[in-house]
């Protein structure tokens, strides 16, 4: 039974949408950039001089291999996100990587796994390679209460020993100097040191030494330092208790089989390092150089020194700076490459139209201004035409000039100066906000970073909201973006106002915000400089307007009674609506309480303000019209049950009117749990959840209709809608978990919609909304066929042809941003997560522009052939007529 239907669906889908990428379009409209995140460990492949491999382990739980010449990725392994995938240490000797509870060894050439060993539970302390006679054969792993030795070849455990007195002694370091012993260093705070030497063969304790403090000396700045000749270990402790910074020792052991270099760094403060040397007697330490705070030390520095052919010392340095930029520097201080690893954690983004060129602006200005007489208008028109002609000639000359040059030299470098809008507005500026507080301006066509701006003093747990206050449409006013930065703990916020095209900070002073901010909303009201007004609501429900000129305040007073907003308190399960008063205070007008003992609010989403809906209704098979319920104030509230038991867990979806607080619809999905991903648009809500009973992911779609008659077709008012909408719902099985979901967006909303679904495999699926239509019939009728409804099939298809990013997977997709372009058929898509991928999608194919594969040769040859055929046949006809006349 299901087979014919699915066949039919496939057959149908083949006809309805053949939206996919063609092979020759690869890289034409799309690009991908891969990132790894902030480096935690880095190693140079030092086995051969010519090796260009570089190994990194990052805070995003990624282990990657880079080309050190270009900074490109060879391969990358993405482990589980979150604390379970954290990489504790990365050791390198041909191969080796060590991760949390699992010990993994990697093949550095192929990027494949050699082996993986499960370690016993216990918090990880240290690990090192153990070498014998210059060959590395074992890995020692020190846990809180045990030490284990593994074979390097296969990962099998050679022995594991419990550490004596592990509840009192803090074991901190493990060391092997190439002999047949493994030393473990333990500290009993404020008492003594313990050093245990284990036999490499069977893990027997050979000797156990306890060092009292007599050997320790006080080095300047109140730092206690203890040294031990047997292990070459150094123990540091602060005598001054109120010092916040714990000194850190940085030493270097170039080869596991040999002793570490006797010179080492002691980091005394965040920016105070001392280079020390252990003297030959093994007891005294001589300071070599003191790096005072004036010597700038970046957060992390990885130096690879090597002997060149002429026996001079060469070096390569990998610098990780505070803004997560990774720079590779070679000998004469030359920067070889820089990677902006901050882009591995994009939080939010916006796309801003590029500014018009001078000539375009001139033309626009002509239409914008009021008419001042016939003659000046004609003059103006003529002058603008001349300017256009000039521009065209200049363009032609440039083309000609470039054609004469050899091919390789012609390069279309995109710079901020040459940026201008293209004729279909397909090229835009992507403003990306990263978690590290660095802002980027990226050209959407090429993916090159045009500007970057690092915001200092941004808390690591800050929340960002990017608002476009003024677009580029209001020449000569520059476009304006505002970034709201909010500290998650205190709720205190600050504003950063900047020009999104050039990245420069605006001279407009943002208002001071002394109180925590609860909600921000962008009003359609504009001030005299065409900037939209941003309202910020603080915890005393007072409203601050930005910009707050007299003009704006006056407008706000006039409109106050029609400005409503809502607040969510998910910890109290409280959703409340407010209205603005004339004096910019607020009054609460409604409140919905969802008891927190039963369920918690997970997400609330309204519709996108720049969304257009072209058709008011749907024409049914019997020629009647089913009108959509298009409430611009509708909020979709998703809740999850607090009870996680699979039998009792549920997911709730509430549709609430944001003005009146009326619950329009309520859908509860039993035996379901999150994470819930949902899209709210037009008259529909699509959400995805996990069905705990059948253990599968399911998509559900809610569509709201007013019925066959509109109540008030001219204007929608939440206060005057007596009838509740008709709600249709259908649910489908989705054969894969998903990570994020977004709907396509076009200029006028004529194009059919697709859902862009980010899958954990890194693919982005473009799923036609047609498949998520609650009116899909179980039994095909004449009417449904006429409406082009696909018959209902329980399982949603996933076809690889629908992957808009083909094999360019985007690891850990966190968000998908869609923006309309100047063409109705085209929607710009940016997927961001660990990687950034930009492309265009055509949900209804390219109906308004000739396709890029349009066959000009064929059509012109046919035209010419027809033309000549008519000419010839005309001639022939003439000859024939003449002959007949002679007969």
């Amino acid at each position, binding site marked *: 039974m299901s087979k014919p239907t699915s066949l039919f669906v496939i057959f149908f889908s083949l006809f309805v949408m053949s939206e996919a990428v063609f092979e020759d379009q690869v890289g034409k409209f799309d690009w991908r950039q891969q990132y790894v995140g902030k480096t935690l460990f880095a190693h140079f492949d030092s086995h051969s001089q010519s090796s260009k491999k570089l190994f990194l382990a990052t805070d995003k739980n990624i282990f990657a291999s880079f080309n050190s010449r270009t900074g490109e990725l060879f391969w990358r392994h993405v482990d589980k996100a979150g604390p379970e995938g954290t990489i504790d240490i990365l050791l390198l000797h041909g191969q080796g990587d060590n991760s949390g509870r699992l010990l993994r060894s990697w093949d550095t050439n*192929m990027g494949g796994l050699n082996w993986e060993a499960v370690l016993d539970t216990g918090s990880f302390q240290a690990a090192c390679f153990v070498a014998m006679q210059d060959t590395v054969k074992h890995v020692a792993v020190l846990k809180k209460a045990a030490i284990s030795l593994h074979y390097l070849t296969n990962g099998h455990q050679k022995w594991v020993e419990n550490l004596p007195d592990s509840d009192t002694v803090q074991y901190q370091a493990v060391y092997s100097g190439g002999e047949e012993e493994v030393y473990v260093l333990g500290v009993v705070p404020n008492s003594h040191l313990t050093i245990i030497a284990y036999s490499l063969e069977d893990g027997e304790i050979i000797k156990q030494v306890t060092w009292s403090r007599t050997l320790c000396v006080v080095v300047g700045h109140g730092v206690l330092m203890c040294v031990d000749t047997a292990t070459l270990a150094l123990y540091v402790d602060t005598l001054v208790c109120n010092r916040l910074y714990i000194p850190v020792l940085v030493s270097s052991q170039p080869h596991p089989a040999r002793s570490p270099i006797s010179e080492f760094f002691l980091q005394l403060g965040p920016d105070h390092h001392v280079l020390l040397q252990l003297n030959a007697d093994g007891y005294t330490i001589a300071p070599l150089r003191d790096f005072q705070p004036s010597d700038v030390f970046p957060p992390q520095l990885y130096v690879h020194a090597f002997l060149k052919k002429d026996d001079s010392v060469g070096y390569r340095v990998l610098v990780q700076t505070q803004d997560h930029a990774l720079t590779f520097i070679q000998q004469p201080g030359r920067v070889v490459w820089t990677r902006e690893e901050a882009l591995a954690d994009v939080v939010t983004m916006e796309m801003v139209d590029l500014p018009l060129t001078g000539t375009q602006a001139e033309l626009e200005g002509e239409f914008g201004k009021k008419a001042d007489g016939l003659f000046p208008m004609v003059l103006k028109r003529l002058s603008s035409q001349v300017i256009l002609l000039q521009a065209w000639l200049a363009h032609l000359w440039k083309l000609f000039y470039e054609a004469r040059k050899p091919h390789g030299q012609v390069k279309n470098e995109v710079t901020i100066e040459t940026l201008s809008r293209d004729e279909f507005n397909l090229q835009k500026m992507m403003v990306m906000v990263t978690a590290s507080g660095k802002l980027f301006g990226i050209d959407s066509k090429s993916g090159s970073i045009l500007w970057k701006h690092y915001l200092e003093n941004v808390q690591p747990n800050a929340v960002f909201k990017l608002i476009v206050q003024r677009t580029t449409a209001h020449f000569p006013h520059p476009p304006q973006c505002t970034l709201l930065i909010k500290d998650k703990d205190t709720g205190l916020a600050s504003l950063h106002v900047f020009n999104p095209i050039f990245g420069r900070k605006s001279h407009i002073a943002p208002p001071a915000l002394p109180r925590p901010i609860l909600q921000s909303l962008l009003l359609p009201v504009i001030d005299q400089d065409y900037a939209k007004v941003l309202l910020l609501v603080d915890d005393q429900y007072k409203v601050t307007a930005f910009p707050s000129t007299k003009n704006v305040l006056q407008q706000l007073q006039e409109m106050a009674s029609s400005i409503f907003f809502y607040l969510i308190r998910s910890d109290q399960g409280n959703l409340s609506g407010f209205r603005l008063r004339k004096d910019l205070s607020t009054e609460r007008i409604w409140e919905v309480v969802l008891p927190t003992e039963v369920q918690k609010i997970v997400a609330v989403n309204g519709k996108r303000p720049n969304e257009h809906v072209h058709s008011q209704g749907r024409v049914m098979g019997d020629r009647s019209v089913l009108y959509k319920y298009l409430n611009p104030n509708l909020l979709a509230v998703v809740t999850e049950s607090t009870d996680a038991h699979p039998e009792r867990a549920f997911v709730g979806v509430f549709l609430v009117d944001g003005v009146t607080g009326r619950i329009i619809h309520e859908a509860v999905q039993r035996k379901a749990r999150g994470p819930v991903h949902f899209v709210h648009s037009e008259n529909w809500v699509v959400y995805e959840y996990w069905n705990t009973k059948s253990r599968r992911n399911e998509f559900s779609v809610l569509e709201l209709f007013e019925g066959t008659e509109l109540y008030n077709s001219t204007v929608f008012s939440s206060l005057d809608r007596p009838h509740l909408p008709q709600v249709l719902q259908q649910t489908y099985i989705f054969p894969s978990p998903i990570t994020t979901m977004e709907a396509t967006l076009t200029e006028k909303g004529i194009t059919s919609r697709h859902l862009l679904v980010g899958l954990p495999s890194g693919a982005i699926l473009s799923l036609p909304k047609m498949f998520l239509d609650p009116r899909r019939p179980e039994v095909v009728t004449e009417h449904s066929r006429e409406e082009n409804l696909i018959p209902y099939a329980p399982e949603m298809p996933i076809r690889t042809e629908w992957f808009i990013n083909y*094999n360019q997977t985007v690891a850990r997709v966190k968000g998908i941003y869609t923006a309309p372009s100047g063409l109705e058929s085209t929607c710009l898509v940016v997927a961001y997560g660990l990687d950034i991928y930009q492309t265009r999608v055509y949900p209804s194919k390219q109906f308004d522009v000739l396709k890029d594969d349009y066959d000009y040769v064929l059509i012109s040859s046919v035209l010419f052939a027809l033309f000549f055929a008519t000419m010839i046949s005309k001639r022939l006809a003439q000859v024939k007529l003449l002959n007949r006349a002679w007969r």
Partner: protein
Amino acid sequence: MWLHVRLSEVCLFLQAMFILACCFSDMESGPIATSGSVQPNGDRFKIEGRAIVPGVKTQDWISSARVTVEGEEYIGFLRTDGSFVVNDVPSGSYVVEVISPGYKFEAVRVDITSKGKMRARLVNFIKTSEVIRQPYPLQLRSSGPHTYFMKRETWGWTDFLMNPMVMMMVLPLLIIVLLPKVVNTNDPEMRKEMEQSMNMLNPNPELPDVSEFMTKLFSGSKSSSSKAIGGSKCQNITCTSGLRNYCNWSCHGNYNAIFKKSFFIRLYNCFLSRVFFPLSNNPRVCTTLVLCQF
């Protein structure tokens, strides 16, 4: 044909039944009962398997591939020989997938009981309790590279010629034109033989014959063309309409040639009517109409 398909279906069904029976016999505690709930202190197990891409070296694809268990809940990496182990998995039921941007692999559902007994079965999201056994440790064979791209719609002569309608029209035409030149019809014995076979092929003599019409058509056209040269006479064409309308052409020409042609035309007419239109009620009408259109 139909019978064959049926038979194979029945075979499949029987096989499925058999497997089902096997499963029932060795199933002790249904992993469905644990229902995916994870005990925090329960034992942890490992899922083992091996992924193979036939004809491709492992080093070309393993660096970009990984093994995911139930989305990204547990992750394993592929060894250099294509085998994998996903460690630290509590008991439950999981969908195990090898994800590679280059090659497609079928997902497998792995059930782990609380005692650590494992079994692998096909993923079926509709009938979730259906068990079709798969080998464990998992043997995942890639069914080839992903098809991400659509074929361009190109216009070529081959596409045009390979169109079934065009083929149906052009092939008989070629045969009509070429075959008479190959077979010698002047031999009287041969002619007799042909006539006999023709009668056999054409069981209904009272129906007006298409082939005759075709002969007339072709000879007519030939004669009309010869008219321009030699000025021989050819009469008008009368056409009647209706379901069985045939254009009746009467024309005088070289009768030998006509006969020669008529035979082959008849032959291929019949061939057409038997091969191409086996389902239509009146094959003759059908062919005729097609040829008439032509």
